[in-house]
């Protein structure tokens, strides 16, 4: 699958290719068109989509004033934000105040080049692509902290600390639920993961795969601070959380960064679980598209167009799922939020790693994968582990409410810093 093309668009993957000199011009075109053209466009219209979908859920129309069906709304928002006054509070730390949103936006951008949109269409395919992706997506926690600290406002600092605590708590299940994928694919490079999914079918179609997909989605939603995990910047909580002191385009950056990371995170989900670009039917079999190598850019695009289409359809379904959850589920209380991460998600993901090892032994290691044995063994294991951890979590949560309400006959364990 990893075929070298002389006019590789936008394939810059140089691990085995004979690219000894860097095609600067081609890369700059790719960057300008794809990364700073198409993706921000997609993100802008995700914002529009969210407002339309949320409106539909609440039986109203949503933005339709600006242009037909409100299609120009995102552009109107952008212009409004740019023309607002750039206001930085006197006591704020000017430079860090500016660096914070840039850091969050950059961390969202850096995730995108590694994702394989089609056959060989990953902009970059380093051998350890997946751990690079995890490392980059963990930068946003630092950005949020700096945003809260730099505006020297005690509420925004408190909001930032809570946001970072939540982000950090949900990054562990996110990272642990990706381990089964690496176990099955046998390598960290995203293109190999794509190839393996072509051979063995989507990684979603296996009990540990489903469990991992659910935990990854929950962790992704929390990672992006969306309902039901968006406590830190919830309106009813602490003014506007860490971006209280941001106005005008600086706030616009946060907004753009949030939706770009929604897009990036759903691309991650589709690429590793839903076999980005491959149809669910036929399940397995020969590769969907074969690149003979040496195709021109146009041929490359033409060949991959259906794949990109399928990939984008899956991504939009994933994003729609997030909109749907935002429109329906209530916001979680802080302690439920944290307890859910540490007491339910992390143990479940650890157990899931072993179940995925069992699935590997049944399906992927033997030359002729027998799915029946795989499903037969792992399905009960998954069900039992979910019920077990849920019971454990329930019992620990049940003990707590009593304590909290009755002024804790027993001293609460952790008192505030004196």
């Amino acid at each position: 699958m990893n075929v070298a093309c002389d006019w590789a668009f936008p394939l810059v993957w140089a691990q085995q290719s004979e690219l000894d000199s860097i095609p600067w011009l081609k890369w700059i075109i790719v960057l300008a068109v794809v990364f700073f053209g198409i993706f921000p466009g997609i993100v802008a219209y995700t914002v529009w989509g969210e407002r339309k979908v949320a409106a539909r859920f609440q039986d109203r129309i949503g933005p339709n004033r600006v242009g037909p069906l409100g299609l120009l709304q995102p552009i109107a928002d952008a212009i409004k934000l740019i023309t607002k006054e750039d206001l930085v509070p006197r006591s704020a730390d000017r430079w860090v105040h500016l660096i914070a949103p840039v850091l969050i936006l950059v961390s969202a951008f850096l995730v995108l080049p590694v994702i394989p949109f089609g056959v060989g269409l990953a902009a970059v395919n380093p051998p350890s692509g997946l751990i690079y992706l995890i490392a980059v997506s963990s930068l946003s926690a630092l950005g949020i902290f700096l945003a809260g600290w730099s505006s020297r406002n005690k509420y925004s600092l408190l909001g930032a600390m809570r946001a970072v605590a939540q982000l950090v708590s949900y990054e562990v299940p996110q990272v642990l639920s990706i381990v089964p994928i690496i176990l099955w694919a046998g390598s960290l490079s995203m293109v190999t993961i794509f190839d393996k999914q072509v051979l063995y079918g989507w990684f979603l179609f296996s009990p540990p795969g489903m469990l991992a997909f659910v935990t990854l989605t929950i962790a992704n939603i929390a990672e992006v601070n969306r309902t039901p995990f968006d406590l830190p910047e919830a309106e009813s909580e602490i003014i506007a959380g860490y971006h209280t002191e941001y106005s005008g385009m600086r706030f616009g950056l946060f907004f753009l960064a949030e939706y770009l990371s929604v897009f990036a995170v759903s691309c991650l989900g589709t690429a590793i679980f839903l076999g980005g670009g491959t149809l669910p039917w036929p399940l397995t079999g020969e590769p969907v598209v074969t690149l003979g190598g040496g195709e021109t850019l146009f041929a490359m695009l033409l060949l991959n167009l259906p794949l990109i289409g399928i990939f984008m359809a899956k991504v939009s379904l994933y994003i729609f799922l997030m909109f749907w959850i935002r429109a329906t589920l209530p916001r979680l209380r802080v302690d439920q939020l944290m307890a859910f991460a540490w007491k339910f998600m992390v143990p479940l993901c650890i157990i899931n790693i072993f179940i995925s090892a069992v699935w590997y032994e049944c399906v992927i290691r033997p030359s002729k994968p027998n799915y029946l044995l795989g499903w037969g063994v792992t399905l009960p294991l998954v069900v039992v582990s979910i019920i077990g951890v849920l019971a454990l979590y329930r019992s620990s949560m049940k003990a707590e409410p009593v304590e909290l309400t009755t002024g804790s006959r027993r001293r609460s364990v952790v008192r505030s810093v004196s």
Partner: protein
Amino acid sequence: MNDIPLTWFLIFAAACFVIGLMGVLVRRNAIAVLMAIEIMLNAANINLVAFWRYGTPVEGDSPISGVMFAIFVITVAAAEVAVGIGLILLCYRRWHAADVDRFDSLSG
């Protein structure tokens, strides 16, 4: 595409190491000292990986002994920071200051 000579990496690592050491000597706040120690550990990491990359591995050893050493150094540094901040917080609650040289209850 001329290569980078080994000594450049070593001089960079030595410079960071010395800056870290100066930080340890100059700074009073315990957390600043902790940051300087992290710089020194990273300088040693650069040294290890540079020697691994520019040398051919010895037959009996592992092909990536330098990188494995660096991974374990990162684990040790992470554990050290967690314990260090714990101790500093414990001292802070007793002394309301995290400066290293203001602790003089143990004289003699």
